[in-house]
């Protein structure tokens, strides 16, 4: 074990430039993946914020008894999709209209009768904000006789659905493509290290070292490079995030960075790639010598 660590560390000392280049290459490959991850993270967050606005409004017939509304509200609250139910009286609806639509201030002032109906506003739980779930809730609401109309912005919810699916596929595909490119670049980098030490490997084999013994220092070296590359890429991503947030007015409020577990996963990804790249490169080399 001691020899394993010594040989792995010696590589950094014997070829500092090549080792530094490997780490920087790994860092840049992971940085591209990280930047894309940041975009995906913020895109998903933005979509989630939009999603939270998905709401079903059930307009009530005039003169519906309050106790009927209260009973129905309790029933609706028990729907598995429903997060909250809010009753909005016709007076409250008028007040909201007056404060929200100031350009119609005069028209509202001259009203003899409140034209706005009372309503029930239903917010849905996360996971039930897609078009199918919203439509299902709306259909059940239409079954109540005192509900005159149900609105939920069908087209808008369907577009949101489409955008969510599309962004999911795009994020997955581009993310995978970037990850594959990163794996290839890192594999090539480690292969150069292996080739540089081809003579050493040959001698190790001649004096009776087992293949796993030969692989050991390379795997450790790959893991260390992956770790350092991963940490460097995380720092670069954070620098880019700060730079972007500092220079962009819109982004200042809404932009988020990876949380600690996500960063750990990113660095672990670097280690796994470093290990995998070493394993493949050394394995291929051992088969050929």
């Amino acid at each position, binding site marked *: 074990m*001691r*020899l394993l660590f010594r040989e792995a560390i010696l590589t950094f000392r*014997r070829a500092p430039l090549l080792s530094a280049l490997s780490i920087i290459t790994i860092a840049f490959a992971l940085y591209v993946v990280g930047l894309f991850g940041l975009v995906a993270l913020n895109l998903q967050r933005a979509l989630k914020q939009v999603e939270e606005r998905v709401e079903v409004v059930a307009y009530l017939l005039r003169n519906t008894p309050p106790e009927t509304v209260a009973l129905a509200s309790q029933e609706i609250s028990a729907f598995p999709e429903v997060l909250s139910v809010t009753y909005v009286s016709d007076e409250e609806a008028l007040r909201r209209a007056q404060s929200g639509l100031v350009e119609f201030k005069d028209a509202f002032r001259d009203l003899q009768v409140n034209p706005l109906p009372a309503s029930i506003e239903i917010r849905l739980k996360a996971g039930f904000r897609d078009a199918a779930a919203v439509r299902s809730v709306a259909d059940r609401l239409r079954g109540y006789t005192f509900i005159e109309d149900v609105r939920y912005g069908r087209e808008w919810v369907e577009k949101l659905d489409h955008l969510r699916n599309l962004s999911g596929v795009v994020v997955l595909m581009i993310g995978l493509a970037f990850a594959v490119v990163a794996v290839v670049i890192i594999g090539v980098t480690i292969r150069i290290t292996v080739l540089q030490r081809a*003579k*050493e490997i*040959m*001698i*190790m*084999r*001649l*004096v*009776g*070292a*087992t*293949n796993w*013994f*030969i692989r050991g220092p390379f795997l450790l070296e790959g893991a260390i490079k992956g770790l350092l590359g991963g940490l460097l890429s995380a720092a670069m991503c954070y620098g880019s995030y700060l730079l972007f947030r500092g220079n962009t007015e819109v982004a200042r409020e809404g932009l988020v960075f990876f949380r600690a577990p996500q960063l750990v996963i990113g660095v672990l990804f670097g280690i796994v790639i470093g290990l995998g790249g070493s394993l493949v490169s050394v394995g291929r080399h051992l088969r050929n010598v």
Partner: protein
Amino acid sequence: MIRFNHVTKTFPRGGTGVRDVSLHIGKGEFVFLTGHSGAGKSTMMRLMYADYRPSSGDIRVSGFPVGGLTPAEVARLRRRLGIIFQDFRLLEDRSAEENVAFALEVTGARRDSIGSKVMRALTQVGLAAKATAYPRELSGGEQQRVAIARALVNDPAILLADEPTGNLDERATRGVFQLLRDINAGGTCVVMATHDLDLVRQVSYRTVELREGAVVFDSGVDEPRDGLEP
């Protein structure tokens, strides 16, 4: 020690390395493998240390069946062999003692025993005083001695020397050859591939001559003859 039984080695891209070779080398023998370039000497050596596998026939080296060894068994076989080459194959960034110690370290030898074993091997080849020198600071003959020390450090029963004097001047050649003879006198079986017939003629060791991959003369089996072909 080493037994070849109707061994043929052909290569995937064409060509035959050795053809129908049968040979037995006993414990403690010193055997020359001679022949022109391309006669099959190096192929024979590589078959012996399982770098090549026979295309047909059977090879046993120190009890290991070379044809069917797993990678782990190949490693075990090589720990029982010492191998030296014309080009020394030393690690340039390690001193003489580190090069020798390397052979022990990679086989998992106990750390506390490495130092003494390394010094013993370097003393045996007459290089104890240059233990800390790097290969670039040593002459060709001295580098080959370091390679021999590395080959000896695991106390091998068989020493395979593939053209060990090919890169050396006459004086260094004599020194290295004498060293190999001393090693053999200590009971180690030595197989030396060489095309230096002057060297072969100096002594009366068994000589196996190869031509186009086949054994055309074996002094251990055939009638003695006056001279070997140049």
